[in-house]
């Protein structure tokens, strides 16, 4: 995947479960679900100024949450209601080049109907780690 820099995002096509959505905004997020900043602070008064604060790892490991740490959130125009827990494949291409194509599960979705506006939806898909 190589894109000209800068790229303005036009020509982006998003497909979820073989349906192409009229997207207005796409956010692809990736975080390490196993990363943790939690430590036990065991610094004490016997340490000297400038010394590194002492910490210990937590004795218990975190329970597996099923979180892959990777999501695609997109806003779209249309009256399709995306149901939660749906599974399928999400594919994004930018200017004809594939950005990603992964299996995913709907984490959350909303559909907004408002006066003087188009029907707009938003969905967050939790995607499998590549």
């Amino acid at each position, binding site marked *: 995947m190589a894109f000209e820099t800068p790229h303005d995002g036009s020509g982006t096509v998003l497909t979820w479960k073989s349906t192409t959505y009229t997207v207005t905004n796409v956010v692809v997020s990736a975080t390490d679900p196993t990363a943790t900043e939690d430590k036990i602070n065991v610094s004490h008064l016997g340490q000297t*100024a400038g010394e590194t604060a002492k910490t210990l790892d937590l*004795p*218990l490991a975190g329970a597996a949450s099923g979180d892959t740490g990777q999501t695609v959130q997109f806003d779209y125009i249309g009256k399709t209601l995306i149901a939660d827990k749906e599974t399928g494949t999400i594919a994004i291409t930018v200017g004809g080049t594939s950005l990603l194509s992964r299996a995913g599960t709907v984490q959350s979705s909303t559909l907004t109907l408002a006066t003087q506006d188009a029907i707009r939806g938003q969905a967050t898909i939790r995607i499998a780690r590549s």
Partner: protein
Amino acid sequence: MATYATGITATWNSVDFGEVTELKVTHGGSLPMARASTWTLDVGTIEIACLTTANISVANYGKRGTVTIAGGGLAYSGTAVLEKFTLSGVVNDVARYAVTLRIQG
């Protein structure tokens, strides 16, 4: 200029408290009484929280010893009795210990 609370040692009955995380000396708990200008029923307490168990056991309960606190802008020396100790454990944390020493006049 403020002084860092670092490099502090706390000793009671000739044994160092290990990995002291909090220390509080309160000298004086009641007003001086009678003719002596300094005699009082309650001289005060020393509270020490730490992460290792030196000097904290049932065997030390009620014992009298010399207490010395030094370093980090703190200096205290006197005699005190081990009045109370607390051992605590919480899930996903280290064991923690605390003692209260009653200062003797």
